[in-house]
Every structure is written in C-alpha cells, then in structure tokens.
C-alpha cells in the first residue's frame, strides 16, 4: 500500500528576533508513514515535533525538501490537501464565547458543510464524544478534559483521511488521558483512519503506535516498531533467575531471544527481546538441563532507557 506521508530532506529554521541568527529546528528529515496505521513521532520538548507536524498540515512552509501527504504536495497543493486532513493541537483552543455546538458548527462550515449535513455531523460528533449534555456550554466554562474532547471531535468534522494529533493527552488527568487513548485506538480500528501523533510519553506510544520515529534536535534518529528498536539497541525485558545450586551449564547466548546475559553466583540475569514469548522455552530448556530454579522474576524493559539510548 502507498504510504500516506512521504517527506524528503525537510529543513526548517527560524530567525530569533529581527537581526538574530537562524536556529535550525528540522534538519534533513525523511519520513514515510504507511496507510491505516497509528504512527508516533517521539522526542523531548524542542525536538521539532510540532514543526514537523505543522509542515505536514500546511501550517508551515519548509525551507528545503518536500513532503507529499495523501499524494499531494504540502506547499503547492495545500488547499486541496486541507480538505482531506485535520489536526488537534496539544492544547485545545476555541473561541471562548461560543458553545460546544456553535464551535463545531463553525468548524464544519469551514469545510463547506451546511444544512442537514452539518446538523447531522454535529449531532454525530456530540454523541460520539459524549458532549451532548454540554452542547450549550460556552467553551470558556468547559473542563480541560471536555475541551480536549471537543478538540478531538472537531478533527473529525470533515471525515479526514489522515489525522494529526499533536501531544493529544497533554494536560489531561490519567483517567481522561487513558479514555482519549482508547478513543484514538477505536477510531483507527473502526474506521481505518491513519493517525500521526506526536508525544513524549513512551507508554502512550507503546499503547497506540505500531511504528514510531525518534526526533531529537531536528534530526530523525531512529524509526521502527518499539520492540524492533529495543532489539536493535540491545535493550529488552529483564529476566532474573535464582538457581538452587547455581546456573546450569548452558550456552545462554544461543538461547532464542537472548540479547545479553550476566552470571552472579546463584543468580543469572538475561535480557530478552520479548519476555512474554521467550520465558516458557527458556524455563523448559533449563528444566531439560536439570537446573533447579528457585525464583523467576521478569521486569519489563524500561522505556525510558530506550528513550535515553536513542535521544542522547
């Protein structure tokens, strides 16, 4: 299947002040996002995530390079592209004195929806995001969670083929953030909508994204599935085994899924690519070798470690 986003050699820099030096925010970024997936752009604050997403959503013109989204050039065919995408920014902002319903109607009209079609779409979104009871509440009087829900509802007003979410759970409490993540997953699952999201929350990326790309100081450092990236960097789940009489004489490095191992007296620590898959065969192999295992402990890979490895 054709990728929905193809970016090549994107460069963006800003001038600081009238006569200040230019600061490069994106440096030769190449990116491909497959259709139908949830793709994550990860990186620390100031990495260039919002700049990248802004270029892809036509809000910003790159200095160099080109990007095609849904087969359309983000600079030369921006107007046609805008009709087919939508964006929720990290913090929800709407006109303060308009109600939830009025803000949705305004956004719908921007995409040319009118009459019965607009009414139906607004009703559908109010229902989908459980905003119906708040439809006549002015934006300024909404809670943060409701504001964020409205922001997400707005992104579907034009039935986009590609959705951009810029740090969608920033500022939400854990329960609301989890609710929103489930909503994003459901959208992708039920509609096949391609979603590109930026986040600095690795757990969020792991839960939502099939594939991620790490951005730091404007450079794309790595991309792939989180598990693949962990394996590539030798990072993985920790398996701690305590033996009754010391480790069995096995070539542990050759066991499937073992990235590294270390012996310490009666204890053996192994780093596995995926503990949930490798644990049973390893225990079986140990049993065959006649080793007495007194204790088994599994510690999932520390995602922060992955983050640190890639971005530092």
């Amino acid at each position, binding site marked *: 299947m054709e990728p929905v986003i193809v970016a090549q050699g994107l460069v963006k820099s800003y001038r600081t002040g009238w006569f200040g030096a230019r600061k490069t925010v994106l440096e030769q970024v190449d990116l491909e996002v497959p259709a139908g997936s949830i793709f994550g752009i990860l990186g620390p604050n100031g990495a260039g995530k919002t700049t990248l997403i802004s270029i892809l959503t036509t809000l910003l*013109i790159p200095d160099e390079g080109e990007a095609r989204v849904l087969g359309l050039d983000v600079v030369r065919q921006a107007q046609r592209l805008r*009709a087919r995408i939508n964006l929720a920014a990290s913090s929800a902002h*709407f006109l303060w004195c*308009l109600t939830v319903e009025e803000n949705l109607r305004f956004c719908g009209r921007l995409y040319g929806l009118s009459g019965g079609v607009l009414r139906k779409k607004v009703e559908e979104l109010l229902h989908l995001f459980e905003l119906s009871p708040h439809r006549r509440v002015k934006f300024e009087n909404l809670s943060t969670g409701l504001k964020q829900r409205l922001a997400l509802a707005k992104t579907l007003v034009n039935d986009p083929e590609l959705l951009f979410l810029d740090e969608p759970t920033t500022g939400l409490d854990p329960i609301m953030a989890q609710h929103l993540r489930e909503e994003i997953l459901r959208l992708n699952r039920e509609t096949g909508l391609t979603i590109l999201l930026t986040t600095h929350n690795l757990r969020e990326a792991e839960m939502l994204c099939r594939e991620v790309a790490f951005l730091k100081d404007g450079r794309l450092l790595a991309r792939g599935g989180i598990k693949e990236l962990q394996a590539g960097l030798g990072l993985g789940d920790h398996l701690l085994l305590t033996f009754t009489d010391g480790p069995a004489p096995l070539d542990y490095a050759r066991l499937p899924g073992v990235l590294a191992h270390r012996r310490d007296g009666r204890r053996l620590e192994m780093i596995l690519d995926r503990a949930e898959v490798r644990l049973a065969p390893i225990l079986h192999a140990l049993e065959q070798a006649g080793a007495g295992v007194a204790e088994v402990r599994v510690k999932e890979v520390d995602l922060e470690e992955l983050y640190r490895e890639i971005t530092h």
Partner: protein
Amino acid sequence: MKLRTELTKIWAFAARSLLVNRRNVFAVFEMFFWPGVAIFSVGLLTRFLKLDPETVTFVLIGAVAMNTIQIAQLDLSYSLLYDVWSKSLKHGFIAPINLGHVLVGAGLVGLVRGALVFVVMGLLSMWLFGMDLSRPGAGGLAFFLLGLFLNAAIIGVLVLALVLRFGHRAEVAAWAFSYLLLLLCGLYYPVSVLPPGIRELAELIPLTYFLDHFRHFYGFPLITPHALGYGFALTGLYLGVSYALLLYTLRSARRRGTLLKLSE
C-alpha cells in the same frame, strides 16, 4: 454545489461574527453609545460656537463618516483578532478556506453594523440638529455609503495584515487607523486648513474625496473636480495593494511560523 460550499465558508465567518456581537455587551456600546456620544458632543459644540446650519452639517457629516467607518472596519479587524485572542488561529488556516472567505464573511457583518450606525447617527443629526440627510438624494447617499464601506475595507485589510505579522501587538491598529483618518481627511474641517505637506497626504486618502463630493450637496464647493472618480480610483488601487499585502503576510506567516506562535 461549488458555489454553495463557497457561500457556506463565507457564512461561517459572518455567523460567528454575529454570534460574538450578540453576546458582547460592548458591541452595543460600539454601535449606539459611542456614536450617540459623538453626535451629541459634536452637535452641542456647534451650538456653543453658534455655527450656521451649513457648517453644522459639514461637521456632523464628518462625525457620521468617522463612526460608520470605525464600526464597519472593526468587524473585519476582529475576524482574525478573535482567533488570536482565543489562540485558535490554526483551526481556520488548516481548513480549506482562503482570505476571501474571511474578508467577505466578516465584512458583511461590518457592512450591516456600519449601515445601522449611519442610520442611527443620521436620524439623531436630523432630529436634534436639523441636518437634512435627504438633500443628496438616494444616489448621493448610496455612493457616500459605498465610499465609507470601501474605506473601512481598506483599513480592515491593513489591520488584518498587521495582525498576521505582529499578533496581539497589532490590536491598537484596529482603532488607530480611523483616528488617523479623522486627522488627515478633513472630517471636522476642510483639508485646505491642513498645513502644507499634510494636505498632500490627505489627497492620497480616498475618504477625502468622498467627503468632498458628499458635502458639495450642502453647498460647499468641490475642492477636486471629479472627486467621486478620484475616490473610487484610489480606493480600487488601495484595495488591490492592501489585499496583495495581506496575501503576502499570510504566506510570510506560514514561512516564519507566526501562525503557530499566535496559536500558543
């Protein structure tokens, strides 16, 4: 279908502007309180100075013109300032709209509000200070109003360009431009009393010619022959230039990241 889509996008901005005006108590002040105060204060001043009826009309025309332009241009200026104040500028510019939708939509509301102000101030002037608003006839009134609205459009478009360039800092321009016109275009005095240098500047502003043309219906000699033609020619030129400037500013805002900064 295409036309309906375009009209819907225009209506998006008009409907929003109407809603905001309806909810904003200061909109009532803008439309009735300040214009009322202007007519009373200027009218009473003319009484105190014991001016003849023609001169009173001369001054009142200036007051009506000033307030009509001010209100009409505010809706245009506010169309993007609302988004800047609410940090929602991204919503508009990520949608498939163009500046024409914004200008026509918000401009329509400005036109209605400006026309209301013109009517209210005109009626007050007639009732309280004996100004005869019917003397120029329907054609004279229509051309004068058109001239006022087009001048308001020029100011509005220039303010929008400044908003896209400077954001919040351009708010002051929404009010300042009209007062600059007050000073330069001879709203309360003929441009002939302006000092040399400033007078030439006044001649570059189309409102000067619309006022000149309208006042000649009340017995004041035309300072510029074919004033209406000059006025419309200059208006067309400035509208074209200011719209081009606005387009350039928007493109520049997309390059400089101003749209993002104004949405943070």
